């Protein structure tokens, strides 16, 4: 129901690895009610000369921050999912005043377990079938996902793009694998309202990783039932409600007729 509300502030959603670009799942409905921006991480989706020398998620965070500044927008709501959650955390600790709120969906980026345990599934090694099994409460529901060789009927160009995306992910997250120890040192500077959302069946992350991260950063924690690593794809209605409830508690977002 576009036009029935006047979103107070922009909501920036940072995408995960392996998710098709654009307003997928719950993001479509969210876009109808807020000023939703879905920026692409340089290196993903197409070739970007700008990031040829980048080698860390810090580079991505600096890029997204510089785009926000260049656009001159007021403080925004920041949402990041999975790999995008890691980018969002890096942005949040650098410029906490830039964000009205921070919502993280099963984010990578912070290692919480011991040195001989892993926190994150090896999405650079496992086969598509294995990743779907880990990433979904019910992998038969899988939608909105793109990996090398998946969906199985992709043409050569699409698969080449997926390989390039995986190469970008390796560039940013190969070692340490999908986290940066420097980020963990600065989590205390996050002062904006914070929410962590995770599915109860997300096996892409170590058990309870998102809950423990929420404790660590003093965030609200919402666990969605019958849901894996991609709540906005697997449980779009529950995700929509959780996000909208949080945003509207801290802003005028969605307080019109459409809420």
């Amino acid at each position, binding site marked *: 129901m576009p036009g029935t509300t006047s979103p107070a502030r922009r909501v920036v959603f940072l995408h995960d690895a392996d998710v098709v670009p654009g307003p997928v799942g719950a993001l479509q409905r969210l876009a109808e009610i807020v000023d939703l921006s879905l920026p692409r991480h340089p290196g993903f989706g197409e070739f970007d000369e700008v990031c040829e020398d980048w080698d860390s998620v810090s580079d991505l965070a600096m890029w997204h921050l510089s785009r926000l500044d260049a656009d001159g927008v007021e403080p925004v709501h920041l949402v990041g999912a999975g790999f995008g959650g890691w980018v969002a955390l890096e942005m949040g600790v650098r410029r906490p005043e830039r964000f009205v709120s921070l919502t993280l969906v099963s984010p990578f980026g912070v290692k919480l377990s011991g040195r001989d345990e892993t926190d994150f599934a090896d999405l*650079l*090694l*496992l*086969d598509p079938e294995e990743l779907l099994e880990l990433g979904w409460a019910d992998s038969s529901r899988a939608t909105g996902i793109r990996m*090398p*060789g998946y969906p199985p009927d992709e043409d*050569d160009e699409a*698969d*080449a*793009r997926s*390989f*390039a995306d*995986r*190469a970008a*992910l*390796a*560039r940013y997250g*190969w*070692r340490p694998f999908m986290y940066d120890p420097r980020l963990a040192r600065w989590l205390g500077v996050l002062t904006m309202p914070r929410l962590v959302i995770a599915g109860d069946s997300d096996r892409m992350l170590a058990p309870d990783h998102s809950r423990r991260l929420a404790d660590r950063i003093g965030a609200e924690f919402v666990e969605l039932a019958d849901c894996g690593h991609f709540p906005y794809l697997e449980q779009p209605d529950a995700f929509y409600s959780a996000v909208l409830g949080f945003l509207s508690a801290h802003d005028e977002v969605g307080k019109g007729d459409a809420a």
Partner: protein
Amino acid sequence: MKFYHFSEMPYTEISQVDQDKYRGMRAFVPNKLYDPVRGYELYQRYLDEYELADELGFNLMLNEHHQSATGLQVSATMSAATIGARTRRGRLALLGIPLPHHENPLHVAEEVAYLDITTGGRVDCGFVRGTPPEAYPSNLNPIYNQDQFYEAADLIVKAWTERDLFSWEGKFYNYRYVSVWPRPLQQPHPPVWVTASAPSLIIWTAQHGYNLAFLIGREEDTAAIFRIYRRAATDFGLPEPGPDKFGSMVATYVADSEAKAYDVGRKLMWYFETFHERQRATVTPGFFSPHKSVDALRGKLGSIRKLSFEGLIDAGVVVCGTPDQVVKQITRLYEQTGVGHLLCMDHVGEMTSNEVRESMSLFSREVMPAVASLGEQWEDDDIGWRMANDTTPIGSTLASSVS
């Protein structure tokens, strides 16, 4: 032509059930499947075979893999040190040291210099990128594999040749004070080899005047790779490269009768058949271009693995038969490609030590003398691969290789 003995030194006791369970024999196989006593026997056997090879007139090729049941040589320099101490004659061809998987290239420079001195200058030093799955044991980012290779190679050669302290502040390696001790015995440094199939790396190798090796591929791909090198070298103003610049690996078995040669030689298929790895481990992110990765996904790379035993002989990948037949096969390989160093994988998989020893001895007695002179007078040979005669366009498909 020069000849080299090579064995990957495989650990052959992994059952098919376990190979399927752990998705191949490299990188992800738990070492509970390794028996230390059996491993001791295998190492002694393989080292003894290298010692015999030296006595039979072979040079000695060593390599390096990590966390792999397919190859128990964990360090090319350690293998060369061990075998160098047991032998007196053969050259020690390290083919090679996977530079992007070593954290400190200066340690490589030091070890190779030490090795060159202690073996009386018998070292040929190969620089390689390493196979894609090596990125998992080393955990070094495959995205940077190629660029790291170039920087490490440049740094090592500078460390061998620069006589004053220098500093190196590169993209991957950073040292404030470099002057490697000892210096190699061979001056300015041991011959450098590179294994390559990608045109950019072949051209870089030619530009630097390093020797080029191609490990296991169709004869036509070998020829295409050497062709790129020759044209690049002369484009850079270097003289036409002769056979001495080129090495090629073949899996080898010789016997008195064709029946026996084929019967035992079929065991060479182990090398081509024990390969059912995770697709993502053979196409690690960024190691290949996105389009070459798609080729790999569609099964277009490593196509020689699909050939029959006879097909592999026809393609010049396997050299097998009676001494007369093998002489013909090697002569054809020389005539088609201009190769001057034949890297003989004399042992594969479950071939017994007696089978390996018999074949190497027969090769030494009846094949080597017949083909040793190939390429010696190449400048007088009006042969197809000479630049004046070779009008074949530079090809872009070098996809059959498994290395």
